[in-house]
């Protein structure tokens, strides 16, 4: 059985996550072996996911952690211990 390019595109995400059912995965795999366009789409998508997951894409503001803990410190003192808030 042959599968068309545009059907392969519907499975790119599932293919990358390993969530396709084995029969579909097999069809996609076979198609990828001879289709350079779908292979390039798969490779570029995988590459883009690696780049966007890089921690350097979103940098924390300088001093974020210090300010967070300082605020928690200041406000937690004024908050009743969390166990009480549930009962109240």
């Amino acid at each position: 059985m042959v599968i068309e390019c545009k059907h392969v595109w519907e499975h790119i995400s599932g293919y990358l996550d390993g969530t396709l059912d084995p029969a579909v995965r097999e069809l996609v795999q076979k198609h990828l072996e001879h289709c350079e366009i779908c292979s390039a789409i798969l490779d570029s998508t995988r590459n883009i996911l690696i780049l966007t997951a890089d921690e350097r894409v979103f940098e924390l503001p300088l001093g974020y952690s210090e300010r967070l803990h300082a605020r928690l410190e200041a406000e937690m003192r004024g908050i009743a211990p969390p166990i009480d808030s549930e009962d109240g």
Partner: protein
Amino acid sequence: MIETPASRDEAQMIASILAGNSQAFHELIRPYERSVYVMALSLLKNEADAEDAAQEAFLKAYRNLAGFRAEAKFSTWLISIVLNEARSRLRRKSAVKMESLDEPLDEQGHVSPALLRDWREIPSEAVERGEVRVMLQQAISDLPPIYREIFLLRDVEELSIDESATALGISVSAVKVRLHRARMMLQKKLAPQLKQVNPKRRWFPWL
């Protein structure tokens, strides 16, 4: 990043906080500071607002810690708190035009990828380059909100599909559909742009 460090017993830490050792809360949240900020930023698109929303979310988590149910992961619970916090801030800014949740997709909701004949691998070092970083940030930021959220949870913060579904309060199959579209939207936008990145230039221009 969202992985629970192996040596931590979070249930024990939470029990200790609830027993009055509030200082342990600082340690409990440390591994998730970044995820909570990034999720706030993804919706609010402004660093100062995102930082404030993140602080608020951690305070809410502290206040409501007794209501945390151990069947969920603490990290997933935190993420759902910050998403709610950021969404309610967006709603409060009612003067600001709300982003539409409906995006022009073709009738089946398909997103066609950018067609390429080959792909030259872009190494991770490329992210050091400001132009590449801005390209990636912009593409993510331009995703419609429902796709931006799922993409960040799954592909940036690396939650599992099940955890993403829990954090967003949607079904596993909705997670898969949205994630697929988000990834295809990014491929469609970024693949042609990244192809233009000059391979002859060194990734570390200062070396």
